[in-house]
């Protein structure tokens, strides 16, 4: 059985002296050595700490790149090329940062889908979940502004398209866009402020992540079974059990990550971004970075004459035009995540005991992948129709499927405790076949 005990080094006299004045060692002991973690966490629970490590990699490489980068429209592109060609190991540091952005989103998306599958957003972890959505939004803003900095064609036109989204805001739209640009187009003032904010945001992220972990440690991790821990037989200390498991996962991640950095560093990138920005010539096919593709598909999915005409007929004047509808849909696709804990009132957390939700979860995951695929395709022919259906399903999943399942789904019987299916005598009376004692604990 696991031991929850303070580490021996807490008795060191220097540690005690410091701890008496700044109880940082007590804090570490409490949150690592004595912190009870469900004993049944699987590898899907690696991705939270992994995301944290990727953020550290991004901050370290980012600060390094900022030592060589010049945020000026006439110098930015060349300064990035100088990093690639002349700065010692500049190519390596930039490729780590570039692919780190993609890795961050892969890890975080897996982390989010894990939370959805195992119901990690449910009471009492709603605020933990909401902070996670805030982290996602901050990440998206940071990634978008970072992508503008090399000042290639995709940087420039991506910035132009995304900032133009805000022109859809009724009445003040154009004013807001000019304010964002600091001029009458994406130009040097825009680049300067994006650089400033791109440097700032990761530290805001760190702050929100501290809150995220604080909220996590209030009730501890959810687990694959999705029931609360009921005593010492259900938990093990975080250190060394999960530190070691996280380290192993980190090793696997780093092997894959290094594979991309050294053998396919531009796999996730767009060749067009190696062409210097030209404000007089738009590339034939603008696509955002892959991690924005599903949202880009939603943005483009709203028919140009559907809601517009409908509201016109209804209201007598144009309140919403198609552009705004698309923008609202895109932001709504993330905003809906904020209220997910209240859309899903099913008392059962884990999909393991929700036979129907489990299927709808996989359908939703495929729907998101389809949206990503459509986002990369030109908006023409069959792709338009698929995009609309997939967008409709995205929202239906949240506002219809999930609330209805919560009401009508017949869930499976939950085990009495986390350890009960394993040890056979977890919390109270053992039931059925799952009560068989196992050899290995």
């Amino acid at each position, binding site marked *: 059985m696991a*031991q929850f005990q303070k580490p021996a080094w807490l008795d060191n006299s220097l540690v005690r002296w410091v701890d008496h004045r700044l109880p940082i060692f007590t804090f570490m002991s409490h949150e690592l050595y004595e912190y009870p973690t469900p004993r049944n966490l699987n590898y899907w629970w690696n991705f939270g700490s992994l995301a944290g490590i990727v953020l550290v990699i991004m901050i*370290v490489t980012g600060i390094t790149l900022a*030592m*060589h980068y010049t945020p000026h429209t006439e110098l930015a592109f060349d300064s990035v090329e100088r990093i690639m060609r*002349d700065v010692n*190991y500049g190519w390596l540091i930039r490729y780590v940062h570039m692919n780190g952005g993609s890795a961050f989103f892969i890890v975080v998306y897996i982390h989010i889908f894990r939370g959805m599958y195992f119901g990690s957003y449910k009471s009492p972890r709603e605020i933990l979940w909401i902070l996670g959505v805030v982290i996602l939004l901050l990440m998206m803003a940071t990634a978008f502004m970072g992508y503008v900095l090399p000042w290639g064609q995709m940087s420039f036109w991506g910035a132009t398209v995304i900032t133009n989204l805000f022109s859809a805001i009724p009445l003040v739209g154009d004013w807001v866009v000019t304010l964002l640009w600091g001029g009458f187009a994406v130009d040097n003032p825009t680049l300067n402020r994006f650089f400033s904010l791109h440097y700032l945001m990761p530290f805001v992220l760190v702050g929100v992540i501290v809150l995220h972990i604080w909220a996590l440690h209030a009730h501890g991790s959810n687990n694959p079974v999705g029931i609360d821990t009921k005593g010492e037989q259900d938990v093990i200390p975080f250190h060394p059990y999960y530190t070691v498991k996280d380290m192993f996962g980190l090793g696997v991640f780093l092997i894959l990550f290094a594979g991309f950095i050294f053998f396919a560093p531009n796999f996730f990138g767009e060749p067009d971004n190696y062409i210097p920005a030209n404000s007089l010539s738009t590339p034939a096919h603008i696509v955002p970075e892959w991690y924005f593709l599903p949202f880009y598909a939603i943005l483009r999915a709203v028919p140009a004459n559907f809601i517009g005409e409908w509201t016109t007929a209804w209201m007598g004047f144009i309140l919403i035009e198609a552009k705004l509808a698309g923008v609202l849909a895109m932001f709504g696709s993330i905003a809906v995540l904020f209220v997910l804990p209240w859309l899903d009132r099913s008392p059962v957390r884990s999909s393991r005991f929700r036979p129907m939700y489990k299927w709808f979860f996989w359908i939703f995951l495929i729907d998101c992948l389809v949206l990503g695929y459509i986002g990369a395709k030109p908006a023409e022919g069959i792709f338009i129709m698929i995009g609309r259906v997939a967008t409709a399903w995205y929202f239906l999943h949240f506002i219809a499927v999930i609330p209805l399942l919560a009401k009508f789904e017949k869930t499976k019987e939950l085990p009495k405790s986390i350890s009960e299916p394993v040890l056979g005598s977890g919390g109270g009376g053992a039931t059925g076949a799952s009560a068989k004692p196992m050899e290995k604990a």
Partner: protein
Amino acid sequence: MADTEGAAAPEHSHEGETRRDFLQLATGAFGAVGVAAVAWPFIQQMNPAADTLALATIEIDISKIEIGQAIKVKWRGKPVFIRHRTKAEIDAAKAVKAGDMIDPQDDSARVKKPEWLVLVGVCTHLGCIPLGTSRGETKGDFSGWFCPCHGSHYDTSGRIRKGPAPRNLEVPEYSFVSDTVVKIG
């Protein structure tokens, strides 16, 4: 941790402990090598980049410098003094006795051709640029250079003679490409 292990299973304690110790040491050593390998590029990126190093050598046409005149050129971000010395200046530089100098050095050790003196124009005290190169600037008590920051006097060979500077003005690496062109660096 090894203690509790030993207490729980005394019959394996010795063997288990050495194996675990070995694994921990091996893991730690492996990790340390990894950390060093990752740290290296991050330290190395602070050093001069390839394009900075490419600018580290310059060639100067000295045919237009009259006897008694000196010029200042920029090399690696620092001024370099090139002085076309007069006969009197060369003689004065050669005549100084070692006992009169703070950092004794023979004039012949500081020049490749006696009429051309090439120096890094940075005072060896705290990095100011001594006066005396351009016409009208004070040349100090020894007709060479004078540093206005803290009053160091250099002679016609760029040697420190008076004041707080500890060493003579540095002679950069240079060579005569031809009679009229000097390559510095």
